């Protein structure tokens, strides 16, 4: 292999990416757009998901001391805008139209229940039990997670003056799942996956690049010069590794600007970037395999999805939202280990010598090396080098 030839071929790729709109979009613009879209939708820049909720309250018992106390305490949480509705029907109508995220239906025996508890707080058998009905907006995952706990907290601490987790309540209410209003945003859990997400599209670009050069005779033309197949592949490796690093840097700046602040130290950041760089080799390998089996640049675009989709769905941020089976399947795609390592390093603040990070590094290194080698061999066997 010859360094000057390798660099000449790498420069050619860089010029292509800067000058061909489709390449520039997929390699640079798309990852940035995606990051900004996710950041503004789920991150701090777009506003916290749990900053405020519109909750409708229907007091079937009428305007009573206990129901007024409940409404005031809901207000006092600072995260709830309370709207009083005269009937359950009008409240349900508002809920169905997305005007409120939840409806709290206070039962007709609400005052009785509160009074019976206050009179005999330690004798549950003397309580007048009742059910507070809570209707949630099924279109809002965050509301469904947060509002039940808020309602329970207000009923317990606000109205009854007790900590609901420490003892039984005279009200039955759906059990809350998450009680955290302030905390990491959804974007914090998505951000590490964006690095792998951006890099994966390299598969398509490498495949299109090689098939187009084969179609228009440029591959042959290069190979009738003293340049070897090794020079050609090394040119791609150098160019796409640098492109991968630039992508990672741009994504990093974007996610940082959008409120995702990695807790990693310098060593952790460098380790993260090393893993992303190694992952670029894997994508070059998949790109070469795609190019070998594609007859044209057009078909390469479609065929690249064979390698692209599993990595996207099983190995990046989408993985956390998948079933346990799909998450287990994710362990067979290199992107999973990239995302896992970056989550450990950037989000959890794991040490670069932690077992998880080192295991991920080893898996990404070995799998990327093997995939690149297989890609070169298949591309060569198909008569392209």
């Amino acid at each position, binding site marked *: 292999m010859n360094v000057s030839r390798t660099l*000449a071929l790498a420069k050619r790729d860089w010029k292509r990416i800067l000058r061909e709109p489709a390449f520039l979009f997929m390699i640079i613009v798309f990852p940035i757009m995606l990051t900004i879209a996710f950041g503004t939708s789920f991150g701090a820049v777009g506003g916290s998901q749990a900053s405020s909720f519109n909750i409708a309250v229907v007091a079937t018992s009428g305007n009573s001391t206990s129901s007024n106390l409940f409404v005031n305490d809901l207000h006092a949480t600072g995260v709830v805008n309370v709207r009083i509705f005269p009937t359950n029907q009008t409240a349900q109508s508002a809920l169905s139209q997305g005007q409120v995220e939840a409806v709290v239906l206070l039962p007709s025996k609400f005052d009785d229940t509160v009074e019976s508890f206050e009179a005999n707080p330690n004798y549950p058998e003397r309580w007048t039990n009742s059910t507070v009905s809570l209707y949630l907006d099924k279109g809002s995952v965050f509301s469904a997670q947060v509002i039940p706990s808020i309602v329970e907290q207000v009923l317990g601490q606000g109205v009854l003056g007790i900590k609901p987790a420490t003892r039984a309540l005279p009200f039955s209410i759906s059990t809350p799942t998450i009680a955290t209003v302030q905390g990491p945003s959804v974007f914090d859990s998505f951000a590490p996956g964006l690095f792998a997400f951006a890099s994966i599209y390299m598969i398509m670009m490498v495949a299109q690049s090689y098939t187009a050069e084969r179609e228009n005779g440029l591959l042959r033309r290069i190979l009738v010069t003293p340049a*070897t197949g090794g020079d050609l592949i090394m040119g791609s490796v150098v160019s796409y590794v640098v492109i991968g690093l630039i992508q990672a840097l741009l994504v990093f700046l974007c996610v940082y600007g959008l409120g995702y602040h990695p807790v990693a130290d310098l060593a952790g950041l460098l380790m993260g970037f090393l893993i992303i760089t190694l992952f670029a080799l894997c994508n070059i390998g998949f790109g070469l395999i795609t190019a070998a089996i594609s007859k044209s640049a057009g078909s390469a675009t479609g065929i690249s999805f064979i390698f692209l989709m599993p990595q996207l769905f099983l190995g990046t941020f989408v993985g956390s939202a998948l079933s346990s089976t799909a998450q287990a399947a994710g362990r067979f795609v290199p992107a999973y280990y990239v995302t896992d390592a970056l989550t450990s390093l950037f989000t959890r603040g794991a040490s670069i010598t932690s077992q998880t990070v080192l295991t991920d590094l080893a898996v990404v290194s070995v799998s990327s090396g093997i995939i690149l080698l297989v890609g070169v061999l298949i591309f060569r066997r198909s008569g392209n080098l």
Partner: protein
Amino acid sequence: MQREMTSAAIAIEGLTKDYGDVRAVDDLNLTVSEAEVFGLLGPNGSGKTTTINCITGILKPTRGTIRVGGFDVQSDGQHAREIMGVSPQETAVYSYLTGRENVRLFSALYSVPKASAQARADYVLEKVGLMEDADRRVGKYSGGMKRRVSIAIALVTDPKVVLLDEPTVGMDPQSRRAVWDFILELRDRGKTIVITTHYMEEAEELSDRVGIIDHGRLIALGSPADLKVEKGAKDLEDVFIQLTGRRIRDGA
């Protein structure tokens, strides 16, 4: 490196190339001397481009040997490629690079020293009439201009042996004449040039000798003047038609 000392710039012995059941080149024997312009002529699908591709080493012959500058293109392809400049049948230039960048890229692949690469690129671009447009992207060029870039790429290293596969396709008369002049200048400087073309007047104008190939076999070899006398023809096209017939052929 084992170099056979010979005055033949290209020596082809018993070249046969099969594609499955189809024999594209059949036992071709040919020598092209140093400082000679050799025209390789033939109808579509006759085996011209396959022969050129075997000479470049991009295709492996089924049988036979080819030496370029004394180097066996199969066993010592690297050295053979270092002394060859090739303009393939496809235009094969990077549309997103400028004309100059295309030429500079390929000069880098031939390891032309940076100090001389710029001057050499300017020289060939000037010769093919592209200096004014050298810094425009090739994607904006006409077909004829792209073909001229392709020729400039082939010649940027000042190669000893030049293979030009249909070099003037799509060119206007002025551009074609400029390319012809450049080819003759190269010959006068001792370069060996193999040119394939469907333009008989081009072959007649440029070639010291022509070889007419049909169905993979060499069916005529000599100077255009000798072949015309031999066949009692008024021009080379008449010779060509006499030898290959009037039936229209398809294929590469």
